[in-house]
């Protein structure tokens, strides 16, 4: 808050000086030069500090009450079987805070690619204004239909992230890949690419979770619950929008909770 005000003052002063004098910098006298440099410096300092100006909401992905590990870790699955995970990525978007069913804060440009292999995916950095009170958090699992038809986008939505389907429309909302002896195919693989924004297979899931302590809370995803609901033996390759893909996205949405 103070930084924003500060930045505003610096910036307006800067503009005033430039407007009152000539455009060229060398014509300024020494005091105004120093003043301008100071303003620039302060804006710079402000930018550096601004990055930390957010509330970290940890995002915990767990299996059997422990943080989920990829690749070599084999987990016990449905009593007699094993399961390994190789890729786990999903999109969280349109994060909104709610107080008594009223929206109190909504994140701008709210798209987060959560990739378990990336360190910065272990928490969401949300720039919530300091004194915001809320009792629930709302977000989407996946990407909305408007964004899906908006052409090439950058940041977490950049197609280099491997979350845009190349032979058809739209983003993959949720991607899980791995192996299990239960999978009835030569390499015992499973691949779930859940997405789709067109009716009847709009895959986007709206999630609302109640938050009891708004100062300190974390979002968790229970992988064990998700895979227990799968039929790994018969349905282990989903690569396009379908009724089953939507069903699985619904079941994934239920695996989120607040801790």
């Amino acid at each position, binding site marked *: 808050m103070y930084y924003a005000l500060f930045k505003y003052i610096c910036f307006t002063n800067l503009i005033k000086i430039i*407007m009152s004098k000539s455009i060229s910098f060398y014509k300024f006298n020494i005091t105004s030069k120093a003043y301008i440099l100071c303003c620039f410096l302060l804006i710079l300092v402000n930018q550096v500090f601004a990055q930390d100006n957010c509330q970290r909401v940890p995002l915990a992905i767990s299996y059997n009450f422990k943080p989920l590990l990829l690749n070599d870790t084999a987990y016990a699955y449905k009593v007699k079987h094993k399961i390994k995970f190789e890729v786990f990525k999903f999109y969280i978007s349109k994060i909104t805070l709610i107080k008594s069913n009223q929206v109190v804060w909504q994140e701008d440009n709210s798209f987060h690619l959560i990739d378990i292999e990336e360190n910065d995916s272990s928490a969401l950095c949300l720039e919530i204004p300091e004194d915001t009170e809320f009792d629930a958090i709302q977000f989407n699992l996946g990407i909305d239909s408007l964004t899906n038809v908006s*052409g*090439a986008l*950058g940041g977490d939505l950049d*197609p280099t992230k491997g979350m*845009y389907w190349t*032979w*058809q*429309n739209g983003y993959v909302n949720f991607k899980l890949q791995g192996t299990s002896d239960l999978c009835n195919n030569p390499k015992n693989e499973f691949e779930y690419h859940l997405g789709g924004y*067109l009716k009847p297979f709009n895959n986007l899931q709206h999630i609302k979770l109640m938050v009891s302590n708004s100062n300190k809370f974390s979002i968790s995803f229970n992988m064990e619950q998700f895979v227990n609901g799968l039929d790994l033996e018969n349905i282990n390759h989903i690569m396009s929008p379908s009724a089953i893909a939507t069903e699985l996205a619904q079941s994934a949405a239920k695996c989120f909770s607040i801790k």
Partner: protein
Amino acid sequence: MIKYFFVLICLVLAQLIEQNDLFDTPKNWPAPFYDFEKNKLTKEKILLGRVLFYDPILSKDSTISCNSCHSPFSAFTHVDHALSHGIHDSVGTRNSPALMNLAWQKNFMWDGAINNLDMQSLAPISHPAEMGSSMNDVVIKLNRNKIYKKLFHNAFKDSIATGEHTLKAIAQFMLTLVSSNSKYDKVMSNKAEFTVQEQNGYQIFKDNCAACHTEPLFTNGEFANNGIDTILNDIGRLKVTQKKEDAYKFKVPTLRNIEFSYPYMHDGRFKKLNEVLNHYANGIKKSETLDAKLQNGIVLNSNQKVDLIAFLLTLSDKEFLFDKKFSYPMEEIKTLTLSH
């Protein structure tokens, strides 16, 4: 103060003039569908897109460029290839579409699988039978290249290539591929006249073909089953929409530059326009999704066929086919290399 205001106005005007210079909607055409606001054309971005279009760096083994299957002299399709081949001579299942007037197109590919021109190039880049690469690999390769650093910097004020910027630049070049200077266009603006035969052909066209191949783009942008069987078991639009009523439907292609964009149909089965007309006369195979307008075929006598073809040839736009601003940017690359 007034001086600054004046300068500002001039800058805005200059920007507007440049935009018009880079892309012009031909007279009496509908407004383009592409949202230029989200990807404003600039000379530098178009140049970057044009360099990328001709560069095999986009394919896995650096052998195939966009231009391999979309050459300018064939209206940006693969001349004489029913099905195009990609890396390691692998063959796909569909004929490579001619590229022109893409700003007016709502969706891309024969089945409309792609919803935005920006995302179109992702498909061939990633398809194992086409370029067999991935956007991530492409960006890594581009970032190793000094000339691209410069091109990206000039275009986006950022020398680092990203997926977004790469795709937007290619889209910008493709948007400039506007064909609107055929004899037909000149006749429509009273700068030329049809011969008697062409005029007869135009009437036959309007009576029999224009419902789907609507002027001035010569496509209505819809999907239709034109009674072709399925040699390659291609179910068409059904694959995208998963709706039964879309089985065997393919995009209605434009007829502009049809003289040069052979072979025809989604699988390139017909080499000559005559074969296409014979198909519509007596080759149509009935099925549940066959277009209502084709239930009885389009029966023309041989004179009518000759006249119709004479008209179709007036859709050739040689200025477009041999326009230097669409060719490999040899001069520009030379300048960039030297200045480096």
